[in-house]
């Protein structure tokens, strides 16, 4: 049992730290914070990571991965979040990419992987459907064969950044035979195809990142089918298992908690900084202590995977506990912001309003409610653990 870093690890840490300090500059951050320049800024940053060779740490080296050890990956994430560096948009790099290199044919790999790595293509995800919720397998969007093509009809929902996307990867129904999971296929669709319509959904944080995507007789070549027809569910499940560890989001939550402490040192109530209030301290440490444990739960999973084992039962709690902690920190930030938690986006400056983080706290908190809902709600996660880990029927 050993969790210390080797000299090589420490050198790697310094390298990463230096890179972020230099490359993730203020101008870039300002462009990311502005909705008008957000997309371009993200692409610029991801291209910079690509040049650095660090765009896909989780990919196998042969497809463009970094070949890092588990400890290096862990260090990279620590440094990334400590520096406040935004994570890459996951839809290409951590979602469809791994499915393509694992289950796609050579032609598909050549065609799609470079665009993902270089961030030339912006991907989005077409899984959920209106009314289906966590019951993913009930999906109804159908793909009917017409010669060498499929004709797609149906709709997907909660599709993040569909308004920016060049491509969407979809689960579609190609058969109604057998169990519901069995007639599902995994399909890549060009968003410029005729018959696709993107309807914005304004979310509870008053922003537009979600969409409904409608498919009306959309023609997709069968060359865009990943793997075998009717086997899409298997590929999607493999994808879910692919990146178990990142889902707890511990490094980001730790950083957000540090921000809470910083803010709470500046907020004063009756002459005492909020951070000096024992009750507030207790609220912070309630979370901090759970996070300290969760960080090690994540390390245990990483270590077990690195030593060739499968992730143990402890991995299944990462999503539940991780999202609960994210929300707890978001809530605490709101408490610190007090009245200012309610401020909606405005043209007024921070100086005019009299506060600097209320509005962003609101946005994170409100949109953060989704974390326990999407990707299989925490209720569904508990059902899964009860069955798969605890053996309860």
């Amino acid at each position: 049992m050993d969790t210390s870093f080797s000299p090589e690890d420490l050198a790697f840490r310094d390298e990463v730290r230096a890179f972020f300090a230099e490359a993730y500059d203020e101008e870039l951050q300002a462009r990311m914070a502005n909705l008008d320049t957000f997309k371009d800024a993200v692409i610029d940053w991801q291209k910079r990571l690509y040049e650095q060779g660090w765009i896909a740490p989780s990919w196998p080296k042969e497809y463009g991965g970094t070949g890092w050890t588990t400890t290096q990956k862990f260090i990279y994430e620590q440094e990334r979040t400590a520096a406040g560096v935004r994570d890459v948009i996951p839809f290409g790099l951590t979602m469809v990419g791994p499915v393509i290199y694992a289950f796609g044919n050579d032609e598909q790999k050549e065609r799609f992987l470079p665009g993902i790595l270089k961030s030339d293509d912006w991907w989005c995800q077409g899984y959920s459907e209106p009314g289906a919720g966590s019951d993913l397998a009930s999906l109804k969007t159908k793909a009917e064969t017409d010669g060498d093509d499929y004709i797609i009809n149906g709709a997907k929902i909660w599709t993040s950044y569909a308004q920016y996307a060049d491509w969407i990867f979809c689960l579609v129904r190609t058969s109604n035979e057998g169990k519901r999971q069995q007639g599902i296929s995994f399909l890549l669709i060009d968003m410029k195809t005729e018959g696709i319509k993107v309807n914005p959904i304004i979310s509870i944080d008053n922003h537009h990142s979600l969409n409904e995507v409608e498919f009306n007789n959309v023609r997709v070549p069968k060359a865009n089918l990943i793997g075998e027809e009717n086997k899409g569910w298997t590929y999607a499940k493999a994808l879910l298992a692919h990146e178990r560890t990142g889902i707890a989001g511990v490094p980001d939550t730790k950083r957000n908690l540090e921000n809470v402490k910083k803010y709470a040192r500046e907020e004063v109530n009756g002459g005492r900084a909020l951070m000096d209030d024992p009750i507030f301290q207790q609220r912070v440490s309630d979370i901090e202590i759970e996070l300290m444990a969760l960080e090690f739960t994540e390390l245990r999973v990483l270590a077990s995977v690195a030593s060739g084992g499968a992730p143990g039962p402890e991995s299944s709690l990462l999503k539940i506990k991780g999202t609960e902690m994210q929300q707890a920190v978001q809530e605490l930030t709101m408490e610190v912001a007090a009245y200012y938690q309610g401020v909606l986006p405005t043209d007024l400056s921070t100086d005019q309003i009299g506060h600097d983080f209320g509005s962003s706290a609101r946005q994170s908190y409100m949109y953060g409610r989704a974390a326990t809902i999407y990707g299989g709600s925490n209720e569904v996660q508990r059902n899964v653990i009860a069955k798969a880990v605890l053996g309860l029927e």
Partner: protein
Amino acid sequence: MNFDFSEEQGMLRDSVARFVQDDYDFDTRRAIADSEQGMSAEKWQTFAELGWLSVPFAEEYGGFGGGPVDVMVVMEELGKGLVVEPYLATVLMFGGLLQDGGSDAQKESLIPQIIDGSLQGSFAYLERQSRFELADVKTTATADGDNYVINGEKVVVFNGANADQLIVSARTSGEQSDADGVSLFLVPAEAAEKITYRMMDGQLVANVTFNNISVPATALVGELGKALPLIEDLVQRVIVYLGAEALGIMSQLNTKTLEYTKTREQFGTAIGSFQALQHRMVDTFMSYEQSKSMLYRAVCSLKDEDDGTDSEIHALKVMIDKAGKHIYGEAIQMHGGMGITDELDIGHFAKRLMMINTTFGNGDFHQGKFNELRYAS
């Protein structure tokens, strides 16, 4: 010992409930909140006609002479409709200070205007640094002959965008957080500079700056330098009223969530049939009932002032904070993806509860006060 409402209270309740039901559906509310003024002058006139604007005022000024229970009844129903019109700011806060501390001349001239709907008011008390401490006042009012000259800034002023008159707290003596030395002044809104912005609960608020604003001595509300008890007394009542509004909202959230779980199907069955959700809905039901009990306890304590009123008020704020978070949290979670859309009303109920929780101090702040009051050695 009874918890019944009088016949008059029942009629008042029905009147507000009917308005919300018939004239204030969610789309109407959204349109009003999104409008430039952030409220409907037409609806406000309806409030006047229905007599709601007169409820807490003494009969000699044309008021209904209602007590805390009457106001509670109104606020609970307004909460159910997420009504954005500034009943709290104009009638209960601005009007409440006038009623409690205003001179006869002030009351005679202003209260009838509030009651007939022609006057909008606002209480400007919050400052950038003051957070939840009412005594933390940096704005100053300096005597200058028969006048007072006001300098300073107030932030997040409820109804600040629409108010015709402001009551402003300003320091006439003492140091920044001294209990003594705070005074209240009536200031015509046009005298001050303001910037306005919108809050997530539909409020259009303002930061108001006073730059050498001169007001006559007759603008003083209450005694010079002795405004803090007046303010604290008002805040106690307002906390009860906000609690009533919160209770109305919680009732809506629980009802709507319950209905949703009975119809929403997942995995081939209504999600309300899942035992884990059932038990959680029992818990939100209990949170609601406990909040209601605490509200009743607090409103009864207002009438019986020698019986530890303060701690009942603090306890109410703590309870509403916890129950509110619990109830809106479960409501959003159980509505799933729909729960996090702006389209659905659930999120809007949640946002108003969140703003109520932070107004005049969050749960932790009040629990600290409660602890001090009851446990200090």
